[in-house]
């Protein structure tokens, strides 16, 4: 029981320790708040700009969730297709990898040409940046079904579809949820990039304006809000993962 409590406390202790260290260093080394504001200064800024931050954060949250939702749907579908067909898999990997290598910030202008400034570019950027890990992981989970299992079912007359849905997809779920934890944080990166370049609201837009006006504490406050949102969404994803794929997390390493 002792270790369990320690595990539950560890994130808080580490996080508070990190910020305490930061605070102390800022004071001891007399770092200008223009270069690196102390956490207390940032916290004050968060409080001071709370209405503005909350408004923009809600917008960013929506953009992120919409993009993430699209990525989950599309990623699952494409992953299933790639995992069940070696031909399509082999054929499309260069395209996928090539596409994923393009920095998404470079795609935003194109999105603006297509859709104009507004909510579409942030959602699309979030989607484009976060679907790739989902595709790769779902495809891997499905394509690595044990050949014996496949033989058992095929000898019974199972179709490819039967095998994918009865064995492949459930088997890929741990991979899928693992990839969601990567994808949700990437989706934040995407929506903020989109907002910075092609939106009049959102944390990304707030960041652009605050940095142009040299409002350093506000910039930091916005970053902290983003980080907190990211951690919360990650935690939600992780708890969904635990409830859905408990069977896969039985090793001593995971306990």
């Amino acid at each position, binding site marked *: 029981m002792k270790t369990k409590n320690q595990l539950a406390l560890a994130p808080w202790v580490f996080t508070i320790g990190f910020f305490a260290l930061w605070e102390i260093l800022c004071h001891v080394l007399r770092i200008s708040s223009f270069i690196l504001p102390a956490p207390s200064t940032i916290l004050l800024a968060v409080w001071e700009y709370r209405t503005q931050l909350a408004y923009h954060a809600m917008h960013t949250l929506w953009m992120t969730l919409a993009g993430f939702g699209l990525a989950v749907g599309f990623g699952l579908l494409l992953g299933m297709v790639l995992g069940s067909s070696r031909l399509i898999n082999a054929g499309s990997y260069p395209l996928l990898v090539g596409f994923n290598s393009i920095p998404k910030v470079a795609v935003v202008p194109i999105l603006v040409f297509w859709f104009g400034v507004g909510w579409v570019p942030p959602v699309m950027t979030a989607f484009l940046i976060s679907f790739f890990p989902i595709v790769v992981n779902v495809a891997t989970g499905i394509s690595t079904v*044990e050949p*014996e*299992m496949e*033989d*058992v*079912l*095929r*000898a*019974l*007359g*199972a179709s490819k579809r*039967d095998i994918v849905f*009865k*064995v492949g997809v*459930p*088997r890929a*779920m741990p991979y899928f949820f693992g990839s969601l934890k990567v994808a949700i944080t990437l989706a934040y990166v995407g929506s903020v990039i989109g907002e910075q370049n092609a939106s009049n609201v959102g944390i990304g837009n707030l960041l652009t304006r605050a940095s142009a006006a040299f409002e350093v504490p506000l910039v930091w406050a916005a970053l902290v809000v983003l980080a907190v949102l990211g951690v919360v969404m990650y935690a939600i994803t992780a708890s969904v993962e635990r409830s859905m*794929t408990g*069977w*896969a997390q*039985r090793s001593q390493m995971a306990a």
Partner: protein
Amino acid sequence: MKPFVDIHDVTHVYARAEDGLPAVRNLNLKVGEGEFAAIVGPSGCGKSTLMKLATGLQFPREGTVIVDGRQVGAPVKLAGMAFQNPTMLPWRTTLDNILLPLEIVEPHRSRLRRHKAEYVAKAESLLAQVGLKGQGHKFPWQLSGGMQQRASLCRALIHEPKLLMLDEPFGALDSFTREELWCVMRDLHAAQKVTIILVTHDLREAAFLADRIFCMSARPGRIVAEREVAFPRPRDLEITYTPEFSELVHDLRGHIAQARRAA
């Protein structure tokens, strides 16, 4: 007895084989209905290929495979399979794992939802037969290796297959568990009247369980010897300590050793 499985002069080359060498060549084998056949041979002799041919997972390059009076041109659908690796799905309980074939095979597939209780009762009676009474609600990873293998046998039998193919099902078990499972297998065969083809490396296992033993040569595999096993049924484990049993095993061993030397 009319043969239930008739493999006639079959030569098979895998499409993926790099050397183009056949896995089996001029293979001939007949197993009667309800018979328990065992196939022994040096490793890599094409025993698994034979399993795939008999269940319709592979089709022969040359020759014919006839199962239940029909030439095999598609997966046979009347076969159950069990392997050395029990391959239970970890997200399903043991009972749901056993019911899996029913979700695939007709007519059970369309009946399963409405007649669930009937099928569950059947699965539970199978579990009781293999000594896993009341363990169905557990997940497979909560069972020991031997228990998983028992469950895997139940899964292979749930849809009442006419043909049961066993690919070294007890190979990964300790010798006590293995002997226990021999008896389970013997009793299942006696109760279900199913035709069984057992692929194994263990000559004692083959001699104890089978009515007929085929020895295969090294790759490309063919049958080099066929032995009828006349020990009366039901057999007791004690027969494995009789001189006749040792003699049979010794004789089989000679054939395998020769096949290995020839390779």
